[in-house]
């Protein structure tokens, strides 16, 4: 598997808190839109179709 599915962020709790904070005060629709932008940005950063395909699979099966 090319996708890293083991812990990879040095400060997982800190990132998680940032993620939630980014959504603070947003209406549901605005929150969804933010997530969509985030997905696109991260996907472009990864840039590897195999990794992206595995990520899509994992998210669907979870």
């Amino acid at each position, binding site marked *: 598997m090319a996708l890293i599915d083991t812990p990879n962020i040095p400060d997982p709790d800190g990132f998680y808190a940032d993620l939630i904070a980014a959504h603070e005060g947003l209406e549901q629709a605005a929150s969804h*839109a933010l997530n*969509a932008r985030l997905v696109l*940005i991260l996907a*472009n950063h990864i840039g590897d179709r195999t990794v992206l395909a595995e990520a899509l699979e994992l998210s669907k099966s979870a």
Partner: protein
Amino acid sequence: MVDVRYQTAFRLYPYERVAAQDRVQRHQVVIVGGGPIGMAMALDLGLKGIEAVVLDDHDGVGVGSRAICFAKRTLEIADRLGCADPMVEKGVVWNLGKVYREDRQIYDFNLQPEAGHKRPAFINLQQPYFEKFVVERIREARDDGAPIEIRGKNKVDNIASHDDHVVLEVDTPDGPYKLEADYVIACDGVRSPIREMLGLGFEGRVFQDNFLIADVIMDADEFPVERRFWFDPPFNPGQSVLLHKQPDNVWRIDFQLGWDIDREKELKEENVRARVDGMLGPDVEYQLEWTSIYTFQCCSMDEYRHGRVFFAGDSAHQVSPFGARGCNGGMQDVDNLGWKLAAVLNGEAGDRLLDTYHSERKHGADENILNSSRATDFLTPKSEVSRMFRDAVLDLAEKAPFARAHVNSGRLSVPCTYDGSALNGADDDTLPKSLRPGSPAVDAEVDGGWLIDRLGGRFQVLAINCLAPTVEGAEVIELDSHTAPDLAERYLGEAAQAIYLLRPDQHVAARWIYTKPAAITAALTTAMGG
């Protein structure tokens, strides 16, 4: 009765009574439909010495442009047929595109043409001109002895396909007659009466959207020569708009309208004008040349060959116009079928070669349908989530260049590579991937001229930086890449030399770095259907 279903822009082939109406005659190829594809098909066959009769139920080219964007590969095919020069002279070339959202520009792009190609990536030209230039070239070829005949106001009413020939029943202003053909090519457009008569299906997707297409004539300096695309502009809220320049000071405007509309109301001149005024501003003078409303779909037949009947162009496959793949795709059908049919009729190849028309062109059509469906899905998102991602792309496009790659208002038609085709032979994959077997040849500047002008019409062995082994059935071209950097880059990559076997449609059949005559002969046999 031969009904008039549309007005003609150029009356090019008025009805004339012919002797064949009194006595059944047999022709090598009869083409049903004289649109761009039928006419180009006749020209290609006629130039190869094959007898081609075109039957069209009108006597000229229909009013209303439809296609305006003709891609480089189409121009190269037209070059091979000898009618690209007037198209390019008349056509408009644009490089600058601007994308707007609501009331502001979010980015622009410059499609700087890549150097070392005879033809531009595409031109804008009204479809009636395209057809007219093909028909004019047919006249010229006919004067030089090409056996092509065009019969206007000849409407095909019935078809009967037999093992060794096809019989057509044709209606004319002087009443019906019958004629026979070795092969029939149905180029009778998206509603293909031939397809109906044979009871064949045409499956696909209808996109739940309507587009108002308006061609307006404005004074030259009102707008620069560039393509503008708007998402959700104030003059068409919630929808998209496209503005494109054509020759003769004509501008094409596509207004997306949405699904639930009142067609008649939208087509009323005052309502069309209200939209155009909103877009151009109140002070711009213009004339409305042509308006129409379209619903787009992507459909294809399952098989493009049915015995002795072939389907080419819109009769075989339909795409939404985003990416301009309709006529451009159809021209590749012509390119593919012409040499195969000629080879079989001349007894040089067996019937099996004709099956590869379907397999190769279905592959091409699937690619075109895929691309045009994706563009349509971007413009008309099918679900809330799809719309959310579309809007997210637009949100980001203003700031982050990567997101612009996701903005899809059509991916310009490029010819497909016949990967996996039964006609493909040997490959040396250390040579550039873009010219692997199945790919169309790429142009390059050589000896002060263009490579593409020297290719096509027969099998050719192209030897670069080496001597070409002589084989029967192929012409030899030897080139030196040391003074031709594009040739070296596109055809050799890292290699010092290469030998390409090219088909009459300029597609690569096989390639090597070193090879022997026997290997080329074997590849030639494969490329002729085995």
